[in-house]
């Protein structure tokens, strides 16, 4: 497939790896932000290929993982209400709430459907006026334009039976929170390419300057990851800390203004809890008051109450890059992809699950 094959080409990968080995002369710690990047690193065994002095830390950029338990539980309860059809992206179905996941809710009689676009949920609402269709809007800046478009379309069609359970999060405030942490060990970031496709680069120069940290906009193919790492290492070696964009075949400096306009029309920036990190100031999106009638939490007031994360889980340390997943006492024991205790074990893009699936044969827990 064009734009895929050439970025997995072994000869090109080898050339970039050679440069990376040549130019990594000191130990560096680099965090890839996005779960899609973590997935690529695990899938292609990239940690086996890079110089040992280069430590890759998997960031919090897996939307499935950082969606709070409280929201997941609310989704399960809303799905169970009579007359409701809950539509979601596929990988949200297996995320456990307090009493099982959405697949279990479906088995108990809830109508839960997988869609690949939020607009499909709007179409479903138009086709089933006697049912309440709720779209479970999870994701970063990447998926927010799609759910915003769905909201705009529902409004234009005058649908009264469509609503959004919004759990959108924003990446740059979480990066800021990680960098401001006194325990932070991340020296450079691979920024999430898809997020930048929408948002452009505007949030990053201030972060790079304030925390003196290189930020390299990075894509999702193996060659993209390695080019991102090489750019980061070159900046670190030279003592530079600027925003670079080797993923410019996809990311324009100004992002996608049309997509952003849709997001701005429907959502406003809000403080939001991230699973594993706590409340991130300005770390999420909420429906504007003009769209409050589309808010599933208002339409279906389910009271989940206070929800605590399992105490033994060290997800917060993993998400901040302080420990590798295997260093957690529960990793591979009480906590597995079938029974995740914490956020990063939940989706295959989460740091713990990626580690569990792909690297267990190398580094067994203790």
């Amino acid at each position, binding site marked *: 497939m064009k734009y*895929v094959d050439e970025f997995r080409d072994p000869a090109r990968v080898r050339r970039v790896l050679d440069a990376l080995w040549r130019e990594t002369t000191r130990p560096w710690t680099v965090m890839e932000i996005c779960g899609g990047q973590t997935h690529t690193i695990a899938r292609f065994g*990239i940690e086996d290929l890079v110089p040992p002095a280069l430590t890759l830390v998997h960031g919090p950029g897996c*939307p499935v993982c950082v969606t709070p338990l409280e929201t997941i539980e609310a989704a399960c309860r809303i799905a169970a209400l009579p007359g409701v059809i809950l539509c979601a992206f*596929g990988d*949200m179905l297996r995320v456990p709430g307090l009493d099982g996941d959405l697949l279990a809710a479906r088995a108990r009689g809830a109508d839960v459907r997988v869609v690949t676009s939020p607009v499909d949920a709007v179409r479903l609402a138009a086709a089933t006026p006697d049912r309440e269709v709720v779209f479970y809007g999870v994701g970063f800046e990447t*998926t927010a334009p799609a759910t915003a478009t769905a909201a705009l379309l529902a409004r234009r069609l005058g649908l009264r039976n469509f609503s959004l359970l919004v759990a959108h999060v924003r990446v740059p405030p979480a990066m800021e929170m990680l960098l401001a942490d006194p325990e932070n060990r991340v020296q450079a970031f691979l920024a999430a390419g898809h997020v930048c496709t929408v948002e452009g680069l505007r949030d990053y120069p201030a972060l790079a300057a304030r925390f003196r940290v290189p930020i390299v906009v990075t894509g999702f193919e193996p060659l993209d990851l390695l080019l991102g790492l090489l750019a980061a290492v070159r900046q670190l070696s030279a003592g530079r800390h600027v925003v670079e964009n080797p993923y410019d075949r996809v990311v324009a400096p100004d992002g996608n203004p049309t997509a952003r306009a849709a997001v701005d029309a429907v959502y406003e920036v809000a403080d939001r809890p991230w699973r594993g990190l706590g409340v991130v100031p300005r770390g999420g999106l909420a429906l504007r008051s003009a769209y409050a009638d589309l808010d599933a939490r208002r339409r279906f007031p389910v009271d989940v109450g206070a929800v605590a994360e399992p105490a033994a889980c060290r997800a917060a340390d993993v998400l901040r890059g302080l420990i590798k997943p295997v260093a957690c006492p529960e990793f591979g024991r009480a906590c597995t992809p079938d029974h995740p205790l914490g956020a990063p074990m939940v989706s295959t893009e989460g740091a713990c699950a990626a580690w569990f699936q*792909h690297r267990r044969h190398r580094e067994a827990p203790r």
Partner: protein
Amino acid sequence: MSECPLPFSDYDRVVLAHGGGGRVMLRLIEDLFVRAFADPALALAHDGAFLRLAGPVAMTTDAFTVKPLFFPGGDIGRLAVSGTVNDLAMCGARPHALAVSFVLEEGLPLVELERIVASMAATAREVGARIVTGDTKVVERGKGDGVFVTTTGVGEVVAPEAPRPSRVRPGDAILVSGPVGEHGVAVMAARERLEVDLASDAAPVVADVLALFAAGVDVRCLRDPTRGGFASVLNEIARTAGVGARVTETAVPVRPEVADVCELLGLDPLYVACEGRFVAFVAPGDADRALAVLRARGGAPARVGEVVAGPPGVVVLEGPLGGERVLDLLSGEQLPRIC
């Protein structure tokens, strides 16, 4: 049957009476099933069939449900017969006879049932298997997905030593009989109405397997990578046999159309179902001969890896760039990823 449309019913759709034990049901059985499957045992109209089998016998059963019922390259009928005769072949057996059970949903167009039954008869004929007995039930509209088919088969074991996981040992070569993932992707594409030039691989593999035995290949174990695909099958065998496996990712044949659809949907083709392929564990010295036999029969097999001593139950995939990962069992079905 096409020259005489719907001879077996005054209805054009399945009604509850088709399972009710009366005249309507009898006509369905006599005019559709008995006629299409054309077997003397069925013609006896008895409660079961009498068979004469020699030597060790293998037996298997499988239930089939698929949406849509008809897809490029096949239908639920072809799937139901292929699945069971292939499971017999995986046991080193030549399929002899099948029993077929239908659960029909009220409202299923009878022309569709007729097509499914004709497809089953044709697929069974391909491998010389008889359909000797069966059953029909009808459920109310909304209580089934059109039709569920269960097939049970028996066959005579022809392999000198029946292939099974306990015969697998370190050093064995791992072969796959052709490109993987085509059935799963074709069905998914049909369901999502994606335009892809791709047909399901649903087909019996019996003749290919029997050819391996005829050529004297020491086949240690066979498994058809249906649900869970190639990756899950390797995991199952590695666990059961208490061995490890190493697989070279680039050696596993995947058609570009399959790779592209999987890329778009965020799926891994190594976990996508095949319905006309098998994975063979063969003695290392016999691998080339096995490949030659399958190629001579028009197949596109590949040697994809080898069995290693350990760690037991772990399948390691060597990636195209030299990195490695564990090819694990999935916790359930693959689900499309968010981004």
